[in-house]
């Protein structure tokens, strides 16, 4: 998914993208302001498109679909899993008293373990999500951001 810009440049952009905003500088490595041809499908090649057309083209470009696919493939199962786990916990706490009161170690019972388990899974999922986004999504999304901004810059809205 890493695009044409060198790793050093990409890392710098990731660190501090806010100050880079003058989008002219990011037209591509050839400095002409055109999107660099890289042999892949490039959204919005021709100028003179409206912003709406550009967004539609970016949306259907393989690069964007890949970013979206990576986001959804992580978020959808994770969200369903933690919501179900939380609902199961709440319903068990209100209805399955005997199960929850069963002792595990000393004064600690199943209910305590389940409650602390909710804390633990929350921390773990937070870590996993942040890591996944950093490794698999951030750079590709940022490249798309500059490309799209470059394309919409001249477009009449």
């Amino acid at each position: 998914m890493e695009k044409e810009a060198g790793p050093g440049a990409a890392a710098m952009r990731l660190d501090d993208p806010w100050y880079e905003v003058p989008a002219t500088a990011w037209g591509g490595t050839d400095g002409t302001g055109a999107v660099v041809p890289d042999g892949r499908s490039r959204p919005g090649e021709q100028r003179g498109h409206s912003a709406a057309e550009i967004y539609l083209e970016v949306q259907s470009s393989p690069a964007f679909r890949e970013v979206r696919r990576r986001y959804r493939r992580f978020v959808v199962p994770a969200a369903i899993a933690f919501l179900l786990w939380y609902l199961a916990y709440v319903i068990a706490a209100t209805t399955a008293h005997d199960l929850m009161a069963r002792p595990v170690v000393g004064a600690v019972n199943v209910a305590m373990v389940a409650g602390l388990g909710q804390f633990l899974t929350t921390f773990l999922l937070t870590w996993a999500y942040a890591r996944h986004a950093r490794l698999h999504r951030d750079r590709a999304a940022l490249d798309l951001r500059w490309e799209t901004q470059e394309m919409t810059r001249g477009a009449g809205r």
Partner: protein
Amino acid sequence: MRGDHQTLALLLFSVFIAVTLGITTWVGRNRQGSAEEFYAGGRLFSPMENGFAIAGDYMSAASFLGISGLIALFGYDGMLYSVGFLVAWLVVLLLVAELVRNCGRFTLADVVAARMAEHPVRTAVGTSSVTVSVLYLVAQMVGAGSLVALLLGGTSDTARSWTVVGVGALMVIYVSLGGMRATTWIQIVKAVLLMSGAVALTVLVLVRFHGDVNALLTSAAERSGHGRDFLSPGLRYGGSWTARFDFISLGLALVLGTAGLPHILSRFYTVPTARAARRSVVWSIGLIGSFYLMTIVLGFGAAALVGSADVRASNASGNTAVPLLALVLGGGEGSTGGAVLFAVVAAIAFATILAVVAGITLASSASVAHDLYASFRRPGAKQRSEVGVARVAAAGIGVVAIALGLLAQNLNVAFLVGLAFAVAASANLPVLLYSLFWRNFTTRGAVWSVYGGLIPAVLLVLLSPVVSGSPTSLFPGVDLALFPLENPGLVSIPAGFLAGWIGTVTSPEPPDPAKHAETEVRSLTGAGAA
């Protein structure tokens, strides 16, 4: 003795007020009055700063005092709140934070209005945001009044009323003079104070039991008067099926409401990028999670060291458990250590309330000026600067909150907070998720989903045992309680989602694929983000 710690507590209150007013003037010294600065603090906070500020906005006195108090009284059932309040952040992290940062400018309505007909959508989302904020604000004001009255011994109504008025006046000053930048710094100071206070007390509790958690739990169970039952669920919510459904309803509202709270959403605009928004949520989850873990220790510690009976004798809903625990940990009634710790805890709780109300006031003044005023302004009317309107709106909201806070003084704080979460989950979350993720969502769907969640939530509360029909309700004399549950979430949250779906499928206008493409591309890449 009583006089000593009151003087000390008052002194610490004054120091905190002086420091925060100092921050406000320092921040406001060279302001330009741009909307970017007033609503979003210039968008230049670092993820760590914003993470602390989010934690500061979220950890209200209701959780510091309320949850520990509930644990001290009901044991495990109080812990269920901590879990709900924390797990809610996964919804924010996974589904909301980055996308909202990328799509919006200042408010929740920005995100929805980008895809839809601007006028009706802004009106609807602005209305529900203001409703949520005002409910939450009233809860905090009521909490402030009863807390200060309790801690300072003056349980008289005059002391309470003046506290409510004073807190209201201070929050208006912070917000109108300092905007988001001052509010954020106040949140950071408060989060640091609250975390240090909680860490200190937790360490003292654990030292008392030589680090043996098992001994802590066992003696908590013994002194609670409930024995083993204290450590398992059911003491508070285990009775009738109504109570059980009530709890499930509350649990749903807690976990889904956070992502719809306007003052939390507006915090994501104070950082430069979506990546920074994500990192600030990671910071805040770390802070909030460890804080709630500590409230559990403090709650069981209060049960073990103070005893549930004494906690209940001091305040029926347990709100004074932590201050009482501090008194015992410092060496007991009459000792200098006890007086100092008690005063410090009281001052931290007060700082917490002041910071939280400032954050909510700012978010609701943004909704009024940026969403409602912009929609209702007559075309020919004189152009005013939006920030000027927001400053006036902050004062107006302050007056409304003071008035409602004075009226609602006898309502239970935890109930009001639960209600604010239920309205946020029913009215704000469906419209937000649909606009971010549903291709065919239309303007009618957006408007219906807001009102379809907001109206049932408010109506069901009016028809619930909270308002009438039971000895503890607001109007015990009348009986209009057609709805058995105290928290409307179980019905009103699905209603909001359903209304949005029906509104969309019956919509005469076709969905606009280009607008959806724009929202989707912008939300996931950050193209064109403010």
